């Protein structure tokens, strides 16, 4: 759709037959990539497919084992990112590298500070920043401090930083991971402004929808191998997905109509503070019934993290009430909530969900290690734990097979998440809270996670789903509650939800309480 800017006669990047080996492991196995001037080229692949390895070679962080890289038709050997920057390549990493208390301009000139004699010449720098910002419609305030601006703005600062250093080719690594729908639309606009000016963009992502919306061409990588390069306009999302995963993927989750039952979770007038002791929950009300999935949609930082921490007992609330099946669990320790029916898939699987140094089987009983099934009084019953873990590993297809004794930290992200899901689903509690359950996972694993969440609902459990992925909320939820500024500001049924409308509500507009 943006193809008007592509100049097919000018190849700015050519990567030919790139092979990258780490010991016996081949991360890239003969990958070809051609990017033209003014093109947005998506690199699509599952986690661990080799996308980042490929880009790190283009950005000079790794050297290819074999194969050649041409920039603007000239073969170039890149030994470090400085060589890449000199060749006009800029990269915006998934995790921003900005100094929080510095201003935008200060961050942008960091490392290449302009000087007049021995003095820093910030005035010129500021003008340059302003000029670039206006040219591409970035609308950045050069004097704002990073800590005061939103994540979306910070990303633009990173883009501006690359442009300031003369980048003509921009690599964006999962750029939409933490953006709101509106910010994503704006980012795509900015990308088109850039290509209109003759810049080229390489977009690393596993989100098919964004590829369809923004990219001209797409190169698909699977298990380190080059699969295909396609013109995005010619393929459907389903085709892209099956090329990426290597099999048919179903996006539509099987969710039969069913009437919600009794109330399981009831939160009334909940108040709470965040880590800075600032009030972040301001009288939140929420109800989840048996057999329904309630999705909490909202932009990060509106209180959803604290809400979940309070329900699961990890944080103390400062007012209100919480009951599960009528039992008061307000400000009770985590075990109390667990015993009375709360299980959860935490947002940070490596911090809260797993003890990475524990084996998989030990992680399987993180809450239940004292349960008579797994312990005889003070003694741990290793045999019973092993038996339970082996069954779960098979049932939930946790790979590698027979990983009972492997430290959980050696599993891939998707399989780590499967361990948590296996544990929480097998806990068989009335309430399941899932927070960003598919963050960082690829399509195959997402499909798996969604299947189990919906299955819980179909079995009559109450499910509270908190996610920054609007698509996920919309496709799974029976009801969607929009959280804004510490309150539920509106509620829509999952069927009628409309993305733009939700996005608006999440940003604080259109509250119809």
């Amino acid at each position, binding site marked *: 759709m943006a193809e008007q800017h592509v100049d097919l006669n000018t190849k700015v990047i050519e990567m030919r037959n790139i092979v990258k080996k780490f010991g016996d492991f081949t991360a890239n196995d003969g990958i070809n990539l051609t990017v033209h001037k003014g093109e947005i080229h998506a690199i699509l692949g599952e986690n661990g497919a080799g996308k980042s390895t490929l880009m790190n070679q283009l950005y000079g962080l790794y050297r290819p084992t074999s194969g050649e890289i041409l920039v603007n038709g000239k073969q170039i050997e890149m030994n470090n990112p400085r060589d890449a920057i000199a060749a006009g390549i800029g990269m915006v990493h998934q995790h921003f590298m900005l100094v929080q208390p510095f201003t935008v301009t200060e961050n942008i000139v960091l490392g290449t500070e302009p000087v007049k004699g021995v003095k820093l010449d910030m005035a010129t720098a500021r003008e340059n920043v302003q000029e670039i910002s206006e040219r591409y419609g970035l609308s950045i305030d050069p004097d704002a401090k990073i800590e005061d601006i939103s994540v979306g703005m910070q990303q633009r600062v990173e883009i501006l930083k690359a442009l300031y250093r003369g980048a003509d080719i921009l690599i964006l690594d999962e750029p939409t991971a933490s953006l709101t729908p509106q910010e994503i639309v704006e980012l795509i606009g900015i990308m088109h402004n850039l290509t209109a000016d003759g810049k080229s963009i390489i977009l690393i992502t596993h989100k098919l929808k964004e590829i369809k919306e923004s990219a001209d061409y797409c190169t698909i990588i699977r298990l380190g191998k080059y699969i295909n390069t396609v013109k995005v306009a010619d393929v459907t999302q389903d085709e892209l997905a099956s090329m990426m995963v290597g099999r048919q993927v179903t996006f539509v989750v099987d969710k039969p109509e069913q009437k919600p039952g009794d109330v399981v979770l009831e939160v009334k007038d909940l108040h709470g503070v965040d880590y800075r002791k600032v009030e972040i929950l301001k009288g939140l009300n929420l109800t989840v019934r048996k057999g329904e999935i309630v999705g909490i949609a909202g932009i990060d930082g509106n209180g959803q993290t604290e809400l979940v921490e309070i329900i699961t007992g990890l944080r103390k609330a400062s007012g209100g009430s919480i009951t599960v099946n009528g039992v008061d669990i307000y400000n009770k320790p985590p075990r109390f909530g667990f015993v009375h029916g709360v299980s959860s898939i935490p947002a940070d699987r490596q911090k809260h969900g797993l*003890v990475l140094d*524990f084996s998989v089987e*030990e992680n399987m009983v*993180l809450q239940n290690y004292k349960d008579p099934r797994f312990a005889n009084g003070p*003694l741990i019953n290793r045999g019973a734990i092993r038996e339970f873990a082996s069954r779960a590993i098979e049932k939930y297809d946790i*790979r590698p097979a027979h990983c009972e004794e492997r430290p959980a930290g050696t599993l891939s992200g*998707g399989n780590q998440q499967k361990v948590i899901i296996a544990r929480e689903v097998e806990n068989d509690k009335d309430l399941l809270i899932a927070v960003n359950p598919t963050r960082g996972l690829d399509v195959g*694993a997402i499909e798996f996670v969604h299947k189990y969440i919906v299955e819980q609902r179909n079995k009559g459990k109450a499910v509270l789903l908190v996610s920054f992925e609007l698509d996920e909320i919309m496709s799974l939820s029976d009801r969607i509650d929009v959280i804004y500024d510490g309150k539920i500001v509106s509620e829509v049924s999952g069927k009628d939800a409309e993305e733009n409308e939700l996005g608006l509500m999440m940003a604080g507009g259109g509250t119809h309480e």
Partner: protein
Amino acid sequence: MNKKKTLIDVIADSRLIHTILSIIIGFLVGAIFLAVMKIPVGEAYGMLFKSIFSNTKNLSYCIVYGTPYIVVGLSVAFSFRTGVFNIGAEGQFVMGSLAACLVGILCGSLPKILLIPLCFLAAAVAGAIWGVIVGFLKNKWGINEVLSMIMFNWIAFYLSNFIADFPAIHNEGTAEATRTVSDNARTLLPAGLIEKFNLCPTANWGILVAVILTVVVYFIIEKTTLGYELKAVGFNKSAADYGGISVNRSILTALAISGALAGLGGALQLLGMGGRISIFTSQEGFGFAGIVVALIGVSQPFGVLLAGLFYGALTYGGGKLNLVKAPTQVVDIIVGTVVFFIAISSIFGAIRYLKKSPQKGGSKS
């Protein structure tokens, strides 16, 4: 994936081989220093080994020396496994030995069968309290446990010197020490046995206690729900909290057990060897030796048992080095090098890591 193992794989995978290798390197480095000082290496090491292995008397000395090291090593190893760094074992050791000494002197008329367990109990409680205070300070006011432990080491040191000066227990003679504990409190082997097997005069039952404690620590860590809790807290406090384990209580429990072990180490040393507390001018360093032993034993209870004996043997054997005009500090060089190489064991893992993939065992989901 599973190809032939390289040498680096073997070293990185086996802690035992790694430890043995570190010990060999330690002796090599010690040899370099001896050579630099123009002391015949063969002669010096010959003397070292002879004074360890030549007869039952020497061997029993090594065991006697090693016993307290084993138990203090267990204390530190236990703390490592449960995520607290018990640098305060020194103070807990001193408190344990003080408590055992007080009971051993003041209740000296009790029969052996009561008095010895009472001494051990007092020592364990004293050590545990010394550990728990630190945990309490941390939980209640967030005071850094390493700092307060170092403070408490000094408090224990001066408290011990202060109490040892009390007339009720102070030596009547000129010695700057307490009286010797009652014979009923001593854990020495019967004189007949010592004579028959030509053991050292302080040969005692302590090693049996040390072995039993090793098994107990192994059991707690590996076989109980308590061990599971403590390890979970040690590895990842957030996940333990999420799993419903009380983090603060676990830290207190871990410090109590670790402190009790260090205190028992103090009692074993007192009842088995010295029999009294001297007024010192500086810390004896059992607690710090415990850290070394725990490191050499890679925090595994049975590893600590062997490491404690190794450390005891070197300490005893090293004392004889001056017979060949070699400085006893050579032993410190050896032990230091061993610890150094064990501590950088990750280097072998890192070499392998660099040579292989960026995602170790990176299986695809």
